[in-house]
């Protein structure tokens, strides 16, 4: 595995062209580097996500998965390389960046619903304040979304009154309300009690089926098999392997991936 600067292809077997034909690239990550102090957390990352594609990023903890996910809407600034969303490079700061973030939905491990606002207010805040939509229209759309994720009856409650699974579904609705071009999921089920994982994964699978472009950092192998078109295996700040889910889980190309899979799939 090489890590030399300027090498055009990522150190994987698969090329970026094996996605849905006819759908252009929506997120393009090129030669991205990122350090946390001495720690080199992203090493020359190259990744292309096409429109309507669902990409699952898996790998051991500390491998850079979350950092990559967060850098796509610049919650983490990068040190080098470029990230294009829908053909436009991420602006550095200010209003331009805010506008771009509105098009990139993000779902966090810890939900991060606004604690002092009701579920309905959480979902309508972005449409009203960022998209400048009317309140009535925003609320109508919000209730439709809450219905879609199965918690319309919780609209008037505060986040703390909901279960983890319900909170996460509300957070997905909040992102969807912005009508994003792409959705980022940063370990969306890792903070949930086991019995609540599926209700969230079901919503995500539904989204994938409806053609939403998604980048999902997760440990849920079942979801990866069911919903993803591509699996990206990251370790030590590098993309070690890019593959289809079937190939990856049955016949991984790299030893690092085989080793990882053997540790998580044998029990």
């Amino acid at each position, binding site marked *: 595995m090489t890590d030399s600067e300027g090498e055009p292809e990522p150190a994987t077997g698969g090329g970026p062209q094996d996605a849905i034909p006819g759908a252009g690239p929506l997120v393009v990550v090129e030669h991205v580097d990122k350090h946390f102090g001495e720690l080199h957390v992203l090493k020359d990352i190259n990744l292309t996500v096409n429109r309507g594609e669902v990409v699952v990023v898996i790998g051991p903890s500390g491998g850079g998965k979350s950092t990559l996910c967060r850098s796509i809407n610049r919650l983490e600034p990068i040190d080098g390389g470029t990230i294009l969303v829908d053909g436009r490079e991420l602006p550095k700061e200010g209003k331009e960046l805010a506008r771009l*973030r509105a098009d990139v939905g993000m779902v966090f491990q810890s939900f*991060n619903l606004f604690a002092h606002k009701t579920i309905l207010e959480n979902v309508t805040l972005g449409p009203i304040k960022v998209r400048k939509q009317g309140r009535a229209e925003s609320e109508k759309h919000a209730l439709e979304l809450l219905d879609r994720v199965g918690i319309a009856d919780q609209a008037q409650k505060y986040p703390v009154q909901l279960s983890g699974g319900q909170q996460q579904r509300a957070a997905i609705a909040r992102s969807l309300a*912005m009508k994003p071009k792409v959705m980022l999921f940063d370990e969306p089920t890792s903070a949930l009690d086991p019995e609540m994982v599926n209700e969230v994964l079901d919503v995500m699978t539904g989204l994938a089926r409806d053609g939403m472009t998604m980048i999902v950092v997760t440990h849920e192998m079942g979801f990866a098999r069911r919903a993803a078109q591509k699996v990206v295996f990251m370790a030590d700040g590098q993309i070690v392997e890019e593959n289809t889910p079937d190939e990856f889980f049955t016949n991984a190309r790299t030893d690092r991936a085989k080793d990882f899979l053997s540790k998580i799939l044998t029990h």
Partner: protein
Amino acid sequence: MFDFGPFFDNIDQILEGFWATVRLAAVAAVLSMLFGTILVSFRVSPVPVLRTFGTVYVNVLRNTPLTLVLLMCSLGLNDELALKFSESNSTYYWWAVLGLSGYTAAFVCEALRAGVNTVPLGQAEAARSIGLTFGQSLRMIILPQAFRAVLAPLGSVLIGMIKNTTVAAAAGYAEAATKMKDLLDLPSFTSGALPLFIGVAAGFMILTLPTGFFFGWLHKRMAVAR
């Protein structure tokens, strides 16, 4: 010695003094909250110039005795530099309001900054991720939660401010404590100083105790459940 006669004989003057205290404290409460909120926005802003301004302001005002601040307002800015709000005596009232508000704002800012630190980072990240600008997320997400977290300490700051109105005499503004001192200085005033002190102290408690209780109640009622 404990004859409250002189106190009640002069109740008109004393009530007039307390009315002056209330007028000063009420306006200073609103302005110090406003200035304090602006200052804390500066102190947490990503713009270095604003951050530096906020830090310098807070540290200068917080570490200067209020008497000096108010003397500088009245003698320095009003009299010496002739920066007057009006030609009448109300210029001293406004300088007292401004001096007291500017001073208290530094404490309001620091209380609020402690509140900002109680808001989990994820709240700001979620706000940014739906496309809110820094200003919007501060105004709609961070500060509302920060305020609720520090309502009780803000009550203490306001109580301190109400008691600090007694220093406004330094700005040439006569409030309750000034009236009391004037009464004590009258040649005709021979006894009853102790009841006068007690009466005026009780007057201040009538203002400050409800303030404290109100903010304590508000703190419980408005607390953000996480």
